[in-house]
């Protein structure tokens, strides 16, 4: 599985370049069963171009950049390749820039001896100009116009601009020569030719910039000229920002497990690639690359806990603000929205859609998490009404007898709303939209109930001073009913597992990893929870490369069905989490190692999913946020056993390190306004705290209060017979 070329993903907060590392912006990826080229430039979550290729011409001979490539590397956020063709030495640099949102591409051409060379650089690409939320569409008709040395291309409200530091000597549309001006019609390809002279001691440099997204934002940047005049600085800016961000996040060291330590570092870097502030005041993380490069709020919800552990409270706050801003206040069948519902997806425009059963349910818990990590209450108080509306949305779809949340029919609502209006109609017959949204799990999937329970409890804690006691009691009472229903109705004794859902015809007998979410939420009797974890570890659900979405013993199992057989990395994280929860640290660690191997083998990315019958990515984004973020969260919460309470300035550490480990450490764990450094050995804890008030740290060796700016050590004597003996505080 490691034979596939590793993609190169360059990002700024508002743009991305996708390439295969061979020389051009090409990136062919198997997509839904067929190869598709996802290479090109992305800006403001709009795919601006298809593959972007440069060809060199000298004296009638032509050479593509991939054919002349000598070597390449990523450095300071830029991809730099070295090419050699006859006497020409070429260094190419590709970088994503934020302002304007786009991609810079610079060629520096040199010769060391001989006569001057007349070099023509030919650039070609096809415009796309549609948000990535529509994965399978490339618009056909565009408006093209030249303005001085710039090309502008428009498609409805989306637009891009193409500039170069060497004006084009020749323009072509669809391979036919064009004198410039204005053109409207079908566009397959836009090509330009740029002539430079290269002589010994007189190198030539040409920089291209493609930028855009929303047409109304084109031309607003005041940065354009400086970006073109100093491409090295502009191109390196994202690298500088990344380094600054990384320097503020926690560093985890596992000297006894170098692969795990490397995987942590890779996953953190991968998560950073997904940060996005694409415009219109939006902030968040895109779901993945290449075809989920927009802000999916369910995926964001799985990423934000990791972002909090990394200490980026500001980004979490901005992300939550972005999502709550698009909470539906009324019934919008055309967008699948109901009052109180949070969006499935948001993009600049702004463009947003609703219609999932789970997205809204994550957010009350996320608000609670933000408070626990940061101690911040200002935004939280503003979000309380939104949290209440989420609960009202859930209550409107709750079974009055069981308290269970009812889901399904969300996409059908959209189709029905549009049915009698258009001459052209299209749709996907997806009857249900849980996290496994291509399969029908109606109407009471177990993980949705766990989320509903969590949302009710979180809301009850958050609204404490904002609503009457009776309302808060109603939240808790409903949570109790959900809990009771889960404990009484879902256990599946024959399988020692939980039913996947409860339907009108009775329980749905399918072994899926989703049951593990009820374990992690602490909803089950400990014996039942333990049995569920052991059952999930059997070979029909757990493979050496991760956890399947459905047991391979199920009659509907299909190894290449997205949610009915494929292995998903997020499901592997769920299994790790649940195993630690029931006190099976060896099993939990084995799952974490599986994900760590993927991260290392896949060059720092983690695929969305793999075939169910062999460890081969299939129909899989090469990077998905919810493949890397839950892994990071598990390292903090399960392996390290960390729990935070910034308002009470308290940190609890109950690690479950593998037997034989001799040391581990964390540097710069953010908590409220301070950071904590932790060092662990079997004989000693050392805690350092930078906050302004004392921090109470509870460990397996006892509790210690650490004054601001100081360190404390907890000694313990390890005896061979009796294990460890707590605790001396120095």
């Amino acid at each position, binding site marked *: 599985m490691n034979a596939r070329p590793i993609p190169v993903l360059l990002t700024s907060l508002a743009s991305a370049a996708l390439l295969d590392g061979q020389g051009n912006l090409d990136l062919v990826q198997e*997509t*839904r*069963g*067929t190869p*598709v*080229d996802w290479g090109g430039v992305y800006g403001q979550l709009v795919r601006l171009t298809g593959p972007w290729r440069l060809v060199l011409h000298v004296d009638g001979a032509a050479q593509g950049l991939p054919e002349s490539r000598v070597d390449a590397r990523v450095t300071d956020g830029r991809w730099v390749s070295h090419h050699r063709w006859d006497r020409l030495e070429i260094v190419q640099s590709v970088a994503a820039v934020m302002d304007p949102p786009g991609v810079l591409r610079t060629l520096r051409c040199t010769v060391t001896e001989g006569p001057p060379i007349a070099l023509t650089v030919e650039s070609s690409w*096809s415009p*796309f100009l*549609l*948000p990535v939320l*529509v*994965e*399978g*569409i*490339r*618009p*056909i008709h565009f408006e093209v116009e030249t303005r001085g040395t710039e090309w502008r291309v428009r*498609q*409805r*409200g*989306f637009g891009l601009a193409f500039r170069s530091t060497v004006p084009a000597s020749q323009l072509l549309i669809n391979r036919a020569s064009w004198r410039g001006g204005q053109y409207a019609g079908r566009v*397959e390809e836009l090509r330009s030719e740029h002539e430079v002279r290269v002589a010994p001691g007189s190198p030539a440099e040409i920089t291209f910039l493609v930028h855009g997204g*929303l047409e109304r934002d084109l031309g607003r940047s005041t940065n354009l000229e400086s970006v073109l005049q100093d491409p090295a600085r502009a191109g390196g800016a994202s690298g500088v920002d990344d380094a600054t961000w990384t320097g503020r996040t926690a560093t985890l060291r596992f000297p006894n497990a170098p692969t795990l330590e490397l995987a942590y570092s890779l996953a953190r870097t991968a998560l950073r690639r997904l940060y996005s502030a694409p415009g*219109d005041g939006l902030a968040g993380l895109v779901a993945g690359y290449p075809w989920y490069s927009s802000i999916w709020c369910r995926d964001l919800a799985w990423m934000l806990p990791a972002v909090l552990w990394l200490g980026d409270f500001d980004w979490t706050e901005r992300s939550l603000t972005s999502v709550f801003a*698009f909470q539906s*206040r*009324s019934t*919008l*069948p*055309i*967008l699948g929205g109901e009052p109180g519902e949070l969006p499935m997806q948001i993009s*600049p*425009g*702004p*463009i*947003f859609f609703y219609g999932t059963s789970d997205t809204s349910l994550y957010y009350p818990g996320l608000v609670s998490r933000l408070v626990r990590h940061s101690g911040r209450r200002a935004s939280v108080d503003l979000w309380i009404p939104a949290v209440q509306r989420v609960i009202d949305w859930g209550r409107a779809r709750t079974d009055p007898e069981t308290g269970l949340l009812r889901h399904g029919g969300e996409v059908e609502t959209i189709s029905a*709303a549009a*049915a*009698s*209006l*258009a*001459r*052209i*109609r*299209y*749709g*996907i*017959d*997806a*009857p249900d939209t849980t996290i496994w949204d*291509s*399969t029908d799990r109606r109407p009471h999937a177990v993980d949705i109930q766990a989320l509903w329970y969590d949302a009710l409890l979180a809301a009850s804690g958050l609204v404490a001073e904002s609503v009457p006691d009776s309302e808060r009691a109603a939240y808790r009472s409903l949570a109790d009913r959900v809990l009771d229903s889960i404990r009484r109705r879902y256990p599946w004794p024959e399988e020692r597992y939980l039913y996947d859902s409860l339907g009108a015809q009775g329980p749905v007998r399918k072994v899926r990893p989703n049951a593990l979410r009820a374990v992690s939420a602490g909803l089950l009797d400990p014996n039942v929870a333990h049995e569920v974890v052991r059952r999930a570890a059997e070979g029909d659900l757990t493979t050496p490369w991760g956890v399947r979405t459905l047991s391979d013993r199920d009659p509907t199992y*299909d190894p*290449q*069905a*997205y*949610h*009915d057989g494929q292995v998903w990395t997020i499901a592997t994280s769920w299994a790790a989490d649940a195993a630690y929860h029931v006190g099976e640290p060896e099993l939990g660690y084995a799952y974490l190692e599986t994900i760590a191997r993927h991260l290392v083998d896949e060059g720092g990315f983690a695929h969305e999913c793999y075939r169910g019958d062999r460890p081969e990515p*299939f*129909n899989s984004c090469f990077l998905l946020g919810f493949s890397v973020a839950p892994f990071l969260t598990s390292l903090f919460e399960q392996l390290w056993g960390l729990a935070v309470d910034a308002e009470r300035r308290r940190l609890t550490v109950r690690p479950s390190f593998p037997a034989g480990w001799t040391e581990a450490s964390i540097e710069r764990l953010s908590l409220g306004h301070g950071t904590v450094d932790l060092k662990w050995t079997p004989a000693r804890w050392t805690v350092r705290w930078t906050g302004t008030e004392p921090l109470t740290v509870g460990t397996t060796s006892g509790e210690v209060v650490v004054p601001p700016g100081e360190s404390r050590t907890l000694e313990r004597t390890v005896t061979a017979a009796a294990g460890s003996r707590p605790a001396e505080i120095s």
Partner: protein
Amino acid sequence: MTGHRFGAILSLLRQGLAVEVEFGSHSLEAMVWVAETVERSVYEPHSLCRTADGLRFVLNNPPLRTGAFSWVSLAVDGAVVPPERVWTRPGPGSPWKSLQGISIEHPFEVRPGERTEVVIRDPLPLGRPEVRIRIEFRSVAIPPLVWFEFSDSLGPETPG
């Protein structure tokens, strides 16, 4: 205009107004851009025309979902056309393939921006001013059926 259609339009107006009030006019505008682009980028407008033995039309893109499809079915005015009478090719010069030969091993493949010519070799009764075409696709990777439906008036006859 039927009462149902009138009601649907009123509902749409109400929803549009709600979006504008809650999220601003830019939102409404941007949603329309996306909807219009999708509408106009899959079926090539006015490409539906009569041939000597049936119909032909052109798709310029996949039906929302890209990729490989193990099953494709086409219906004209609600009547499913036998798969051996529906033929497709990416463009001039490429070989025609019938829907009958499509399977998980030999899927029908479409990628963003790729053109597909479709020919239906099934005589259509004369006198119909407008025809409704529905195509259903089953992906090799994601189970739910994807469908695309359009209606258009028939253009002048072209060679089949």
